[in-house]
């Protein structure tokens, strides 16, 4: 059993790395439900929590997208808090109600929240009991998306990790590739075409479009992360025999190229063939990037912690768009999946893990970067102080991975700067 397939690049960021503790202006893991329920089309996410949880999800989603979404909250009341036995009966009733309402649901996730964890409501046991009751109808399991356990995108990691034990075993002698982390359908389709062209078969995207799309895992499994927030799931897959391929994330032309090259090299696809197949999409990505690079080059960008995408995005912006990175704030820095990125960052870039909001904002105000990448709660506040921002949740919601999204990704960062040049109202200074 091996773990990480050795990477040819230096493994650690040599630059300044600090940890900060204090007020954290980040979402909790429940927010992951917003994209997970869109990705896994026959899954339902039932948060067991408070009115705050329900309010968070609908507020973070921005608008009510669907008349009846595939997520809901079982809101705990005073009565539930009085006695635990009651809680399980209540959950039983709520799940029964839900299952009879929603015919097309094949998978139900009970999602733990801060209040359910503080009162030690055991959702895993509850899920197991409910499974017996609803056997043959719907698969039921639990994971935690609570703010006390998870930060924003870690919710997806917990969700995926909770299903690893269910993955079938890969027969010995067989090989497969797992692309780990939610990507949009269009990105999956593009990636599949390239893997086909490279002659790499038996590729699974995890999570898949259907809850039942569970890839097999075993000694012949290679895993490559498409998103940075899958560290714990990657470890769980490694524990089941898989090898993790180390690579930068498939963001931008260079990131995507290195990502595919890393996979191809593990599969011993001849160099020449790899270059031949990747050349066309690579050049197309470069062409799409060029106009945005002209806008972004020489500008300074500052990341406040949000989604764990900060390090790869900083790499993309510095390496491919010519920006200078003044600080990378990240909520959580998992070295396991970040190795391929760190070596490509400038040596003196400061990485700050965790957060203490007010001092972090003070640093932004002092350094006055051209662009600050931050959460929605902060962006307008900085804009009103004359700083340009890119609100970061869009980086998680939009299809940004792969060659053919490289231009779109750069455009997300360029747009606030373009807007600054266009507008002839008010003052940005």
């Amino acid at each position, binding site marked *: 059993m091996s773990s990480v397939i050795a990477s040819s690049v230096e493994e650690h960021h040599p630059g300044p790395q600090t940890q900060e503790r204090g*007020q954290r202006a980040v979402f909790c893991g429940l*927010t992951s439900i917003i994209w997970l329920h869109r990705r896994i089309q026959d899954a339902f996410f039932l948060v067991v929590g*408070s009115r705050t949880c*329900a309010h968070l999800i609908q507020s973070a989603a921005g608008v009510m997208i669907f008349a009846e*979404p595939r997520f809901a909250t079982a*809101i705990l009341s005073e009565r539930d808090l009085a006695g635990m036995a009651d809680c399980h009966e209540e959950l039983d009733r709520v799940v029964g109600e839900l299952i009879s309402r929603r015919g097309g649901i094949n998978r139900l996730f009970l999602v733990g929240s801060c209040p359910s964890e503080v009162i030690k409501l055991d959702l895993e046991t509850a899920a197991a009991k409910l499974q017996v009751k609803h056997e043959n109808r719907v698969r039921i399991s639990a994971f935690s998306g609570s703010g006390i*356990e998870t930060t924003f995108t870690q919710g997806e990691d917990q969700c995926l990790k909770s299903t690893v034990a269910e993955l079938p075993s890969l027969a010995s002698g067989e090989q497969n590739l797992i692309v780990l982390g939610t990507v949009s359908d269009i990105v999956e389709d593009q990636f599949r075409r390239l893997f086909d062209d490279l002659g790499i078969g038996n590729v699974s995207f995890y999570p898949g479009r259907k809850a039942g799309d569970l890839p097999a895992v075993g000694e012949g499994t290679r895993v490559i992360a498409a998103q940075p927030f899958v560290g714990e799931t990657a470890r769980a897959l490694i524990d089941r025999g898989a090898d993790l391929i180390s690579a930068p994330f498939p963001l931008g032309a260079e990131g995507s190229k290195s990502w595919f090259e890393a996979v191809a090299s593990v599969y011993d696809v001849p160099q020449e063939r790899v270059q031949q197949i990747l050349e066309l999409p690579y050049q197309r990505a470069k062409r799409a990037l060029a106009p945005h690079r002209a806008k972004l080059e020489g500008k300074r960008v500052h990341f406040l912690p949000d989604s764990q995408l900060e390090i790869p995005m900083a790499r993309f912006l510095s390496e491919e768009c010519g920006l200078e990175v003044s600080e990378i704030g990240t909520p959580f820095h998992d070295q396991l999946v970040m190795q391929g990125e760190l070596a490509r960052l400038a040596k003196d870039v400061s990485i700050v893990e965790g957060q203490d909001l007010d001092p972090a904002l003070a640093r932004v105000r002092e350094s006055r970067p051209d662009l600050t990448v931050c959460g929605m709660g902060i962006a307008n506040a900085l804009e*009103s102080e004359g700083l340009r921002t890119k609100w970061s949740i869009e980086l998680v919601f939009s299809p940004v991975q792969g060659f053919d999204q490289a231009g779109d990704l750069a455009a997300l960062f360029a747009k606030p700067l373009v807007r600054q040049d266009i507008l002839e109202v008010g003052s940005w200074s």
Partner: protein
Amino acid sequence: MELTLWTYEGPPHVGAIRVAASMRDVHLMLHSPQGDTYADLLFTMIERDGKRPPVTYTTFQARDLGSSTAEMVLHSLREAAERFKPQVLMVADSCTAELIQDQPGALALGANLPVPVISLEMAAYTRKENWGAAETFYQLVRGLLSRQAPPPGSERPSRAADVRPSVNLLGPTKLGFRCRDDVVEIERLLTSMGVDVNVVAPLGASPRDLQLIPKADANVNLCPEVSDLTCSWLARTFGMPTITTIPMGWGATRDFITEVASVLGLDIDVDAVGESRLPWYSRSIDSTYLTGKRVFVFADGSHAVAAARVARDEMGFEVVGLGTYSRERARDVRAAAKEYGLEALITDNYLEVEARVQELQPEMVLGTQMERHIAKRLGIPCAVISTPAHVQDYPARYSPQMGFEGANVLFDTWVHPLIMGLEEHLLHMFRDDFEFNDSVGPSHLGSEGEGARSTGQSAGGQPDGDKTLVWAFDAEKELKKIPFFVRGKARRNTERFAEEQGLSTIEVDTLYDAKAHFSN
């Protein structure tokens, strides 16, 4: 445990944040887990606030539980007092913090902070956002004013002859519905009556302003969801009368003027104070088509009751449903519904509201952001009249709901989603024209007409409970000659009529029999 898809109100601590964010020189220390900071974006994104709300969150995580959460409270309190130097520091728990019982209020009071502390109990598992806002405002006002209170039973001195009459406007907050503009409009109205506005709170007030509240002659309970509790405490403690009419709509604005005049002992000619275009616009023949339009109203308590009155008495609509998500206001809404011969719908379950709208098939919905979604899905015209609202309901333009200009705004906003009178008339005239395109929606609404069209065709698609009812070919053809925007109603009425008559096939005559039957 209650299964909830969408929630009309946030938790009570969001109400506390609304009060804090509305005011100047206050700060709220909220003991809360990581993630609760999402509330910031309600203000920065929905209301487009240019600054974060004045809140420090402890954002504890699992590793802090059991050992250091109380220290985090003290640390956050000291940092907040030091950094923001507020006149008052409020302290509250969010839902999770309430469970771990660190008692941040008690910690703050014992921490020797260089700032007065107001401790709030938010009751996260029984209460909701508006209650939280009301409770916060009340605790703040009580905390700042109770030392000024005259001995119980003392007579309130009457206003000296040389002092201009004045009132306080209580209740408007950030994330309230059009509060920003309503305050301007009502201040304008009062000024034209010769009445000064002493304090507006919470919106724009500082704690020092709150201390001036007793100087006014009366309190206007402008947003009872937030200010009821405070107004009644001020009435009990300082003998300050409360003005309770919500000046929404032409008639209610006049009633408000009359009430203010009577409470303050002023001699005022209502007609001289101001005028709205609503009465004439509503009497103009173009508005004839509004007559008897069936309207469903669902909102917070005060907006629901006020909108129902405007809908019936000032627009000439028929109110076919009235309800609220606010249990605290249920009594008022039930009483109002009775006047319209209705049973009020009191629920915070979005699905129940949707089912009621579906059942009633109104021609228009006046509701919240939630009802806007319901109406859009069902293809029914809709105007938003209350929170919860989304970013488009915080418009750049001056757009009050209250006062005489507010009445103008209501007329325009409610008429806009409907097909205009003359247009409806022309559609009738030209419906047999081969060039007439049946799929045309209201000409001024672009793609939104899409929805209106689909109602026409699908509203009565399946007769309730009896799937054996058949439309004869000719009858179906005849039905198609009826303009699409009333076709759904015609289909539904005909099917109901046929069922009542025990018919299994609908002929052309059935259609017209039904038309005669329902034409009253």
